[in-house]
């Protein structure tokens, strides 16, 4: 459901088919991270997702009430063939122009930004 929704939002924002797939994957990875790390695999946790398109920038914010994420998990080294996991955040950073992890009160925030090509910075 989230994938279909993200595809449609990205389409409305004018992103190419490849960009739509990439952004959808980045959001999916962010959601997986929340489930795995904030909610420790529990499917019961609530995640709020908001998307704002403004001036050629699509900002997606995921907010959860799970445990604070260990900052060490957020800066994994580049992937190599030896390591099995840990590519989710790497993919998010490869795809999006900005990826920020924040703690606001009792909530974790993941802020993803993608600029339209002409404005990419």
């Amino acid at each position, binding site marked *: 459901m989230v994938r279909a929704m993200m595809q449609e939002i990205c389409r409305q924002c004018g992103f190419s088919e490849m960009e739509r797939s990439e952004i959808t994957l980045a959001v999916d990875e962010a959601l997986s991270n929340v489930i795995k790390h904030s909610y420790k695999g529990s499917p019961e946790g609530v995640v709020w997702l908001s998307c704002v398109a403004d001036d050629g920038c699509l900002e997606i914010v995921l907010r959860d009430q799970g445990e604070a994420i260990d900052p060490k998990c957020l800066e994994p080294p*580049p992937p190599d063939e030896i390591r099995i996991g840990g590519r989710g955040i790497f993919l998010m950073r490869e795809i999006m122009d900005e990826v920020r992890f924040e703690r606001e009160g009792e909530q974790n925030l993941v802020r993803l930004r993608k600029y339209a090509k002409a404005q990419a910075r």
Partner: protein
Amino acid sequence: MAKDIDINIVRNGACSVVHVEGDIDLKSSPELRAAIMDLYDKRGQERVILDLAGVNYIDSSGVASLVEGLQEAKKRGARFILSSLNDAPRHVLELTRLTKVFEITKTVDEALGL
């Protein structure tokens, strides 16, 4: 509720072709991982060919399953070949710098002939 992934395995001696259909993601990747590991671990397969023609979406947990399959194959001196990749899964392997790490063929027949 429809399954996220369908896995059909055709075994011929020490070679197996694993036909996968659906999205390989956080929910479905453990099933794929288990199927691959079973082929090496319990069935002693020397060549496992993953037919990904029916896969249009793979995330990092799916990639992790593939890497684990490759590692298991290497450990046993066996082969692990990805075949018939669609554009989106291939792009994810490119983003994760893994296209050179895996043996990748255009078709299953090509993988069978290696």
